[in-house]
């Protein structure tokens, strides 16, 4: 039978009536190559994360105590030393201690790649269509360029430069090309005259009271904003989709229960929920991301649910069923892709909210003060507003433009992906 198949590859087996279904049933399905690569990449990631968790993770110490019966002991699991506190990657000059947030960020990037970038690449016609729609909005295109730059700079540059540190010889320097009188009280690196302090290229955007470089603070702030925005939003999307789709599909009391819970969660204003949790738990960046991610998904789940409900009424849903598809297949292949447009739009509009919330909390002093967030810098600059205006202004400008960019893009995406108007 196999030989005959290869002989007739051109003519015979391209006719539907020539398919030998008995043979098809006996043969088990082979997985396409791309899926294998995708699963492989996630497996590799999982292993590395586990490795780091055992070595450095928060529960590694607990694990050590539990197994060996006392702190400070040494222990190896599968050849990996537990809870050493050593950096994850230590290859000579390249040292990178991967933090929990970093792992989350890498995971987020991987998910974005496999589930957003790859499908777009495989469907060039659709991608081109969406791009043409999107391009019509000039503001959105500029925003996209801006955000890509911010993303790249914020993700890559911090790997190669050091964290901004205090430098008491360069306090309160103004940005390059500007001057300020020395009455500001800081030590000026370059002085033109006795009473005028001039900025230098060494610190193009000036410095803070501690002498920390504002450009570095801005760059690291970019990373923080990106991390919070992307990771927490991805968590929101995943949870919201799971809950919204389940509620829509299962209906009945499951639906009722879930939506009642969402009702309650949404009634509690998101800002104050985060505020209360931040007060109670005193979060690090990691915990803050967890809080945002685990409690911010309510609105999106409602959107997912209402869209999913609409889809199940559509006839192509029934058509897939009549072709023999299992319910899981139908949800995965038909409901989720059609709902994804609304999800993407909603998510893009939710990211600025999270970034703003993080900045606000940093400003209020509620989040980890060691994180170089834009909010902390603005807060620091408030005290000497009159004398050193740049400390509060410049990070704020970046914050403003980033949020503006996301809003423009979200608006344009909504028009491109979700056109209800003729």
């Amino acid at each position, binding site marked *: 039978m196999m030989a005959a198949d290869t002989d007739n590859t051109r003519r015979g087996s*391209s006719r*539907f009536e020539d*398919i030998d279904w008995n043979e098809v049933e006996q043969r088990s399905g082979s997985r396409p190559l791309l899926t294998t690569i995708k699963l492989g990449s996630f497996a590799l990631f999982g292993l590395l994360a586990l490795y780091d968790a055992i070595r450095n993770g928060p529960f590694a110490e607990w694990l050590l105590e539990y197994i060996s019966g006392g702190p400070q002991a040494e222990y190896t699991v599968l050849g990996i030393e537990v809870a050493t506190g050593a950096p994850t990657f230590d290859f000579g000059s390249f040292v990178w201690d991967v933090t929990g947030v970093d792992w989350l960020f890498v995971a987020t990037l991987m998910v974005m790649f496999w589930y957003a970038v790859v499908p777009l690449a495989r469907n060039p016609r659709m991608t081109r269509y969406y791009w043409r729609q999107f391009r019509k909005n000039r503001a959105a295109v500029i925003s996209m360029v801006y955000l890509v730059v911010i993303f790249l700079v914020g993700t890559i540059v911090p790997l190669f430069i050091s964290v901004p540190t205090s430098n008491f010889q360069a306090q309160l320097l103004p940005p390059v090309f500007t001057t300020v009188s020395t009455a500001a009280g800081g030590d000026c690196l370059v002085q033109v005259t006795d009473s005028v302090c001039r900025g230098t290229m060494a610190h193009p955007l000036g410095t803070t009271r501690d002498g920390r470089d504002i450009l570095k603070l801005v760059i690291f702030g970019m990373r923080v904003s990106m991390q919070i925005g992307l990771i927490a939003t991805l968590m929101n999307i995943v949870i919201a989709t799971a809950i919204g789709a389940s509620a829509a599909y299962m209906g009945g009391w499951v639906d009722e229960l879930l939506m009642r819970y969402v009702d309650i969660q949404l009634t509690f204003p998101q800002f104050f929920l985060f505020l209360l949790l931040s007060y109670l738990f005193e979060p690090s960046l990691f915990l803050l991301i967890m809080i945002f991610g685990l409690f911010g998904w309510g609105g999106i789940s409602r959107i997912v649910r209402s869209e999913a409900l609409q889809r199940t009424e559509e006839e192509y849903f029934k058509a897939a069923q*009549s072709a023999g598809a299992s319910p899981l297949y139908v949800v995965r292949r038909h409901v989720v*892709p059609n709902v994804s447009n609304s999800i993407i739009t909603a998510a893009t509009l939710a990211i600025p909210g999270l970034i703003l919330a993080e900045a606000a909390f940093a400003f209020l002093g509620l989040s980890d003060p060691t994180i170089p967030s834009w909010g902390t810098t603005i807060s620091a600059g408030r005290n000497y507003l009159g004398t050193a205006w740049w400390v509060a202004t410049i990070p704020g400008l970046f914050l403003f433009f980033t949020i503006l960019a996301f809003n423009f893009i979200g608006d344009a995406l909504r028009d491109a992906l979700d056109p209800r108007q003729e």
Partner: protein
Amino acid sequence: MSARTLLEVKGLKKHYPITQGVLKKEVGRVRAVDGVDFSVSPGETLGIVGESGCGKSTVATSLLRLEEPTAGDVLFEGEDITTYDKAELKRFRRRAQMIFQDPTASFDPRMSIGESVGEPLLIHGISDRNRRREIVKDLLERVGLSADDIDRYPHEFSGGQKQRVALARALVVNPELIVADEPVSALDVSIQADILSLMNDIQAEFDLAMLFISHNLGVIREVCDRVAVMYLGEIVEIAPTEELFSNPQHPYTRALLGSIPQPDPRQRGESITLSGDVPSPSNPPAGCRFHTRCPDVIPPEGYEFEQRHWRSVQDLRQRMRKGPLDLETVRTAHSDAAGDGHVQTAEDGQSVLDDEGLKAGIREEFDIPQRLSDDEAEDVLDRALTAEVSDDHESGRDLLDEEFQTPCEQTAPELRETSAGWEAACLLHDEQRQRVEQPADD
């Protein structure tokens, strides 16, 4: 056509419960399909025709188990599919496919038509993307599209083209039965012929059996070998197509056929208008479900009626069951039914109709003659009307109810073979058969 049956449906029922309150207590049922039997042979096309709401689409979804039937057996090649488990059901899905009414809604807008047509192949185990593409391209050509269309999206096609794609998708797994639910109803008339002839050709080439559902008799006549007529969840007549059209046995079929618009005025016969509204499937009439609108409804024993008048009296009787008549309308519309002698002018200038005038008006309203030919019947009617106009609605109603019962509401007819050679469900035929079998009785 071989003699073995491909599909046999026995006693298929599909009811939808009507619930009330938080605990979803059942307070009623919508009997969308209430016991239908039919069979389809390989290569044959059976049509199901009826007004909208009669349950024909529900028959399609229930017999394919897209919705679970409430009761009944569906035998496909001898096996009862209502007892299939998941794996067997999936295999069955390969052998019976469905085409839907709205070509736009039946395609996922985010999938190219190539992906949509190839989807059943993927579901049933052909994971090689290239092989699927080859098969789909070949099939697209054969339904009248081009192989290059494979990557296009549904919104780029017209309604007729999309229905061709739907046909391709139904064919791709090489089924033995295709259930087509109003496949051309959403298309322009000029395109309908193309699609129908395509379906005919495909059916002939691949020896497919088809269940063709439509409300359009003209289309049914074109395509089907046999036709089943449905009314309110039941089949009332089932016959070979040409015979049905030339010699309909059931009054409902006759009424349906009479309603086909004839372009040639010389060929326009008398069209039969049905009185009343279609009853609700949650509360079907007792006995024969069609009796509330049937022009041939059987008069009761003991009274001699002209059929037309009997129908009108029955209409009145049914109307009075629902409640008191609206005498105001009668007053205004039929004030001169009894002649001028019954109209008086009151002091405020308004004309008032006396009781006789009202009764005459009611008769006119319901198309009942001013005097029935049967004296006893006339007496009953007159007494009932008198009661009605004297505000004693209950006695009038009860009187009519008791005296003018029709056998059609007491017994539900079964689908039985008539003298013409095929099955219909009407007591008239039972009567005729009884008379033939027992000529001495009367």
